[in-house]
């Protein structure tokens, strides 16, 4: 029972920290896409009639970047809220560890009193925390899935922009460059999300 609590709470905290770090990476990249999309809109305007399709896609990509940023802010808030729960778990695990050490050293009345305290802890607080963490994990999984679908949509937009760039006349080369940058950046986001999903899967399997 002890090792379960001790390892689980420590692992949960490390997991939250890791998720937060991945989220920060994605938020930074999403901000980059937003700027790139704005530049692409200006470029398409300069290219005029020959880049109408590209212009529409650039607007969509900018909307995509804003949606992604919002999604990541919500994900960040969800993980930040979970830090309080996980910190409480770590604290509880530490207390249980000290109680178990006291139990080993005690006998008679002392041991009975410790057993009573441990039963109380296991019966109430810790199981409640586990339920909270499980709910939190389900929520995080759902949010990661939603984000992944959004990023898939972003990938499709970037590929379409690349095709539209070919019809950009004199601006074709510049538009191709911009759409390749979109594709590369969305690829980076996909990589971060995949790593986050794999991490979640591995942690749940453990």
């Amino acid at each position, binding site marked *: 029972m002890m090792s379960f609590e001790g390892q689980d709470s420590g692992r949960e905290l490390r997991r939250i920290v890791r998720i937060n770090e991945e989220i920060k990476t994605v938020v930074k990249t999403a901000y980059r896409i937003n700027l790139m999309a704005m530049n692409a809109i200006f470029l398409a305007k300069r290219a005029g009639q020959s880049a109408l399709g590209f212009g529409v896609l650039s607007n969509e990509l900018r909307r995509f970047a804003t949606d992604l940023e919002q999604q990541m802010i919500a994900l960040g808030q969800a993980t930040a809220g979970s830090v309080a729960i996980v910190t409480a778990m770590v604290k509880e695990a530490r207390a249980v560890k*000290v109680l178990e050490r006291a139990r080993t*050293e005690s006998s008679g009345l002392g041991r009975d009193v410790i057993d009573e305290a441990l039963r109380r802890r296991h019966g109430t607080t810790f199981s409640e925390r586990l339920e909270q963490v499980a709910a939190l994990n389900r929520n995080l999984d759902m949010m990661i899935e939603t984000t992944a679908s959004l990023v898939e949509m972003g990938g499709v937009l970037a590929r379409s922009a690349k095709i539209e760039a070919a019809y950009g006349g004199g601006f074709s080369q510049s538009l191709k460059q911009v759409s390749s940058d979109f594709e590369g950046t969305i690829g980076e986001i996909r990589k971060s999300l995949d790593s986050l999903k794999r991490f979640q899967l591995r942690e749940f399997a453990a």
Partner: protein
Amino acid sequence: MKTIRVIHEDGAHKWYAIVRDPNRPDYLIDTNEYLVVSGDDAILLDPGGSEVFPAVFSALSTQFDPRKISKVFASHQDPDIISSLSMWMEFNKDIKCHVSWLWSSFVPHFGGTRETFIDIPDNGTDILVGNHRLQAIPAHYLHSSGNFHLYDPKAKILFSGDVGAALLPPGEDAMFVENFDRHIRHAEAFHRRWMGSERAKRDWCTRVSQLDIEMLCPQHGAIYRGDDVKRFIDWFAHLEVGILRS
């Protein structure tokens, strides 16, 4: 497990000293804890850090039901004094912690709620344990800026926190001071560095000289008794403190 010994007994009024943990890791300072029992009520003085809780608890519970400890007294705010507070609350969530008002919003970082803490005003207060009245005696700046000792006028015992403390080497760690001159060498550097104010030291010496003390019980090291109590107060009065020597 630490050793627990009765150092004073008068019917249902007892003082226990909980000392020396042979399994204590050497990176932790050794501490003494004291339990004052009056009938079914008890107060634990400087309950110690959470790392030493198992050793203190196991020794204490051989003599007294830990669920009956209704109060703890924290001489000051240090972690080796009171960081185990939340562990003691496992057995009595209504436990009260008597501590200088200066620290009553700092110590809750170790556990407890608003209701747990009872502020001791700067000039001290009485604390009732069972039907015994103990006196919180000001010892500010020795070493903490909000610091109290606890005097039991019936038992004639003064719990003196860090005053009187000695860092004893292995082999010289008896519960009581046996040879004052030999013992005090282990207290000198500690007092010079940890005690920050000459004036506070002089005030304290004057104050406690007026008390009838048979035992002076520090939080580290050995207990002074009989003539060694006066010997210690005189020694401390003449010691230059608050200096850093290279």
